[in-house]
């Protein structure tokens, strides 16, 4: 298999969606309905749908006010059916990705015991039980029961990400654009990960990515309670333009030429001679690579007298088929077993084909 260039868009909510499971018993219906409305008011946009305990049919709620319009009609069909949660939770586990279930009930569900102390291989979903009546099972299942009021339910439903990253078979990120957070490369065990830091959970995350890989990479969201989700991206094409190469100024070209040839050079500014790797004039305290950003990794195209700066968006540059230079100046090559770290680029590192790499400390 060969490395391919892949362009994907990840558009994900960092908050877990909420599904409501409602007790259909007539004697608690008004209280259940009101609590559901109150919850939806504080969890704006997070409640993706509902079902009644005892009925596997799922009702999505995607429009504002849909609950009010739909609920009485649905309720009439299921009034007083047995308060069973197992078949619904199992069907949701099979067909949906991560979510939180909030069960609002006035009765102990008949099959509640099936969801406590589950054996290995049969994990229980995240379930919050809002018990509206009495103490029938108040102390029995502390891992599920929510202590009303609404704010504490909201707090329990929150399971924020603790780690967000993209990885995949042969994955190596080249370019990336995100609407939030800061990106970081993380190399371990011959694999590369793209990590997101400083995200805002309340905002959707939109991340467009151009990368190399054997298969499509995926996003992993690890959450506070130890669960994790894999998200796949949508294929996009031609979102990323060709990287922009900028012509070198005459002054910068003088310094770079000397550097490539490993020769001392006459400083274009102080006229003194400096060692070939000097990029900061010791006499004038001035950065010598005029027009090139300091403290960044740049690629020099000697034939075209142009440079390319690796920035936050341009994470890495591919030299030839299997060699990569990252924005933090590290070189990697693709081998049979995965990515291999080669070295940190040296001043005017020869990258082949008349390209040279340089970290512009300044």
């Amino acid at each position, binding site marked *: 298999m060969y490395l391919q260039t892949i362009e994907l868009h990840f558009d994900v909510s960092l908050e877990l969606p909420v599904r409501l499971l409602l007790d259909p018993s007539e004697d608690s219906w008004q209280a259940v309905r009101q609590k559901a409305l109150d919850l939806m008011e504080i969890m704006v946009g997070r409640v993706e749908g509902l079902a009644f305990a005892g009925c596997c049919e799922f009702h999505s709620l995607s429009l504002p006010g849909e609950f009010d319009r739909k609920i009485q009609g649905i309720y009439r069909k299921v009034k*007083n*059916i*047995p308060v*069973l949660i*197992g*078949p619904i939770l199992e069907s949701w586990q099979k067909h949906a990705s991560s979510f939180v279930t909030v069960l609002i009930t006035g*009765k102990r569900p*008949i099959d509640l*015991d099936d969801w*406590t102390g589950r054996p290995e291989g049969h994990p229980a979903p995240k379930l919050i039980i809002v018990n509206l009546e009495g103490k029938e099972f108040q102390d029995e299942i502390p891992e599920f029961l929510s202590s009303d009021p609404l704010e504490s339910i909201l707090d329990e439903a929150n399971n924020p990400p603790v780690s967000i990253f993209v990885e995949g078979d042969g994955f190596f990120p080249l370019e990336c654009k995100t609407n939030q957070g800061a990106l970081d490369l993380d190399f371990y065990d011959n694999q590369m990960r793209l990590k997101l830091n400083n995200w805002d959970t309340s905002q959707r995350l939109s991340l467009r990515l151009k990368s190399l890989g054997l298969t499509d990479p995926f996003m992993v969201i690890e959450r506070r309670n130890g669960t994790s989700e894999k998200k796949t991206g949508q294929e996009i094409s031609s979102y990323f333009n060709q990287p922009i190469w900028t012509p070198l100024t005459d002054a910068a070209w003088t310094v770079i030429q000397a550097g490539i040839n490993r020769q001392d050079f006459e400083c274009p500014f102080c006229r003194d001679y400096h060692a070939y790797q000097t990029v900061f004039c010791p006499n004038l305290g001035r950065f010598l690579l005029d027009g090139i950003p300091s403290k960044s990794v740049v690629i020099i195209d000697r034939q075209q007298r142009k440079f390319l700066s690796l920035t936050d968006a341009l994470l890495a540059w591919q030299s030839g088929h299997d060699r990569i230079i990252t924005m933090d100046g590290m070189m990697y090559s693709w081998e049979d077993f995965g990515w291999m770290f080669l070295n940190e680029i040296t001043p005017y590192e020869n990258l082949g084909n008349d390209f040279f790499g340089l970290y512009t400390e300044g």
Partner: protein
Amino acid sequence: MEFNILFDKTGFPLIKNSRWDFFISIFPVSKYQFELFLCSSQGHKRNFYSDSWYRELLKKNPRCAWHGETSEPWRHFLSGESPEVFDDFIKYCGNGMRLPKIDEWRQLLEVEHHLNENTDNLYTLCDIAAPPVRHWLRQGLGILTNEGMLEFVQSCDSSGTTIIGRPFTSFHPNLWSPGSEREIERNSKLWNIVSFRLAMSK
């Protein structure tokens, strides 16, 4: 002895010996299965299966978690109701499911010993089964014809139902012959563990 296996709508297995012309389930119908029916549109059709109805039924043979360790295994299985209720469940399962005939049940009884000695095979074949199946097989809860629930089956002439089986001795100490027909009073304690299983012709 070769067996074929198939799974009913609820993910529970039925087996068929190469000499048989029928499949028969390896467990009596469980509450886990019946609750799938209760949560389906068929379960809601008649407005009969209400929360209070089911809770009342469970008083006869209380429920326990399918994954729980219990010295009262009869609590896993649906029992204590009339054949009409069981019939609704059988219809829900569709696919030609029916009550076993009495001689089909007796043929299962004949091979129970062999099957219980080969539960590893059954376990392997049940990799796509509903969660309780493998758990119960591991606990040695298979077949249950020689000692288990009492069960409704079709009578010899298929004109009605009769009850067969030998109750769990921990529920009702006994030396009954499992293959003999029994008359069970509706208000007796034994009625509370009268169950049934599924069969289909093939």
